[in-house]
């Protein structure tokens, strides 16, 4: 017995993943996000002097009275084009990543992503419908496509939840299957609408691949009221998700209501996802990969993985958008292409390193 225990110990001592200080990792991710934001506003078709950018931002955003030294054109590019776009990219990335981490926790499934329960298919159908049939492109100050995508995403998740609950309570497997069914149905409906309206294919595809090119402050205003409360709820639920990780029976034995908790987390994550999808289209991979990166850095505790995913997701998408703008300038790559292009090999590398360590 002692011999086996001894061997097991030395084995795992070698293979145990190195745990880093969570505080340091968080601070590092925060700094990386700030650096990404600065790089995002600085780099672009019209070069801006870095010092001027920082001064103007301090002046305009923080009220520090320094002269930016930028020309009016430069200032307009900075404040009306780049800043909203970068801020929106950070919000969308953060929202998708934290939702992905929450979905993976709630379903105890490492392959879960924020689009799992029909949010993507619903948003796609909503956007396609209004692109094909809506006579007007705006509703009040907002574009009609974001509104339709937002509603579609919520309706998609709502249908999946209703179907899952009707079919078998709040078990995660039933919910997952309901999500798959709803997503398939909505995707089919979307394809049908698209086939009927081939003239609009280009615009629909552009939307589906994800885009931040037309980002405006009104988009930021549109997502904030949904994204911020949803993220706060998710951040608060981190410890509770740790309890859910031991399974429904054991979580109940620890005094938790797994069904209620799962519903709350799914609703919050779906709200964040719907808001993100509404303004950016379907950007893949962020919600799947970023939580795994976070887990590699701080271990499996959701109280750490959720906030870290938020920070990394924001920074990652700002950088991905920067790449999308720069590689083929003046043309732009769809950001969904960039996230998958960068994300997939990176993820494969992570898996490979993880497998070798094990």
């Amino acid at each position, binding site marked *: 017995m002692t011999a086996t225990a001894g061997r097991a110990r030395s084995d795992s001592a070698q293979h145990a993943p190195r*745990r880093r200080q969570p505080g340091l990792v968080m601070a590092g991710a925060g700094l990386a996000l700030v650096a990404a934001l600065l790089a995002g506003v600085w780099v672009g078709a019209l070069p801006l002097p870095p010092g001027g950018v920082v001064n103007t931002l301090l002046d305009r955003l923080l009220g520090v009275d320094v002269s930016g030294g930028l020309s009016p054109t430069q200032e307009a590019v900075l404040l009306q084009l780049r800043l909203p776009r970068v801020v929106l990219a950070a919000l969308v990335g953060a929202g998708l990543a934290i939702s992905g981490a929450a979905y993976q926790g709630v379903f105890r499934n490492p392959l879960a992503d924020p689009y799992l329960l029909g949010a993507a298919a619903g948003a796609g159908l909503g956007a396609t419908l209004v692109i094909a049939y809506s006579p007007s492109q705006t509703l009040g100050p907002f574009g009609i496509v974001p509104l339709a995508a937002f509603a579609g995403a919520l309706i998609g998740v709502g249908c999946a939840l209703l179907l899952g609950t009707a079919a078998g309570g709040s078990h995660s497997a039933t919910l997952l299957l309901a999500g798959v069914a709803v997503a398939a149905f909505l995707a089919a409906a979307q394809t049908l609408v698209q086939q009927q309206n081939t003239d609009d294919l280009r615009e629909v595809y552009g939307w589906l691949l994800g885009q931040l090119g037309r980002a405006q402050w009104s988009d930021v205003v549109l997502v904030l009221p949904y994204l911020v409360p949803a993220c706060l709820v998710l951040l608060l639920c981190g*410890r509770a998700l*740790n309890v859910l990780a*031991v399974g429904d029976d*054991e979580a109940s*034995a620890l005094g938790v*209501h797994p069904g209620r908790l799962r519903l709350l987390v799914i609703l919050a994550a779906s709200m964040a996802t719907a808001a993100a999808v509404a303004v950016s289209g379907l950007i893949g991979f962020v919600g799947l990969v970023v939580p795994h990166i976070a887990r590699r850095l701080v271990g499996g*505790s959701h109280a750490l993985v959720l906030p870290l995913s938020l920070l990394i997701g924001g920074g990652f998408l700002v950088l991905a958008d920067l790449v999308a703008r720069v590689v083929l300038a003046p043309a732009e790559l769809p950001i969904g292409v960039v996230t998958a292009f960068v994300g997939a090999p990176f993820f494969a590398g992570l898996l490979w390193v993880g497998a070798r360590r094990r």
Partner: protein
Amino acid sequence: MNGGAQVEVVGLSASYGRMRVLESVRLTVEPGGWLAIIGPNGSGKSTLLRSILGFHPHQGLVRIDGLPTTGMPRRDRARCLAYAPQTPVLPDGVTTREYVALGRTPHRPLLAAPRGVDRQVVADVMDRLELGRLAERPLATLSGGEQQRAVLARALAQQPRVLLLDEPTASLDLGHAQQVLDLVDRLRRQDGLTVLSTLHDLTLAGQYADRLALLSEGRVVAEGPPFEVLTPAALHTHYGARADVVAGPNGPAVLPVRSET
């Protein structure tokens, strides 16, 4: 700790769909006692534990120190009953200490951070179960026996009055099984905890529990001290087994007998 509680099960019946798996089960475990539920495969042992915990819909009553558990808030129940399932779900990427600390969940608001007292209880429990040097190890890298100890530690961190253990020795070899049962016995004697467990190994059940309940086809067919319940006749009738029962040092031991032909 607060000592053990009395557990009463009265007229408990449960079904899977149309199939009745438990029929008017009646049991009492006195404070500080150890009742082992034995019975052939499929006799309803695990369902009985899960019904007592309120995970499985059932008719009938479960009372803890006279208080019915129906309608008791889940957190209150969790502060009283701790449960270790047959195959615990061991979360990924979590250290032993983080896992044991989950046992503190019913003692603080769900969203709140652990307090000093929580950390103290976790550290004490881990010392008692000799998990100290494994505290920062990922749970997944522990051996089977160590994992079972970690699950017990999590249950004890709940500071319960009753331990419900579903086959605590299921995947352990004899030596590790004895270690775990010795540990449960020690905790029961030191803290006066009430223990209600299922055990499929009849000899271990006979050596450790002070009462046995034999469950067969959803009914309690015998209940009492081990020597009264473990008889060759009962083993033949309910297990379809040929076995002698011999006197062991702390209770009856079951000795399977080969067919004559």
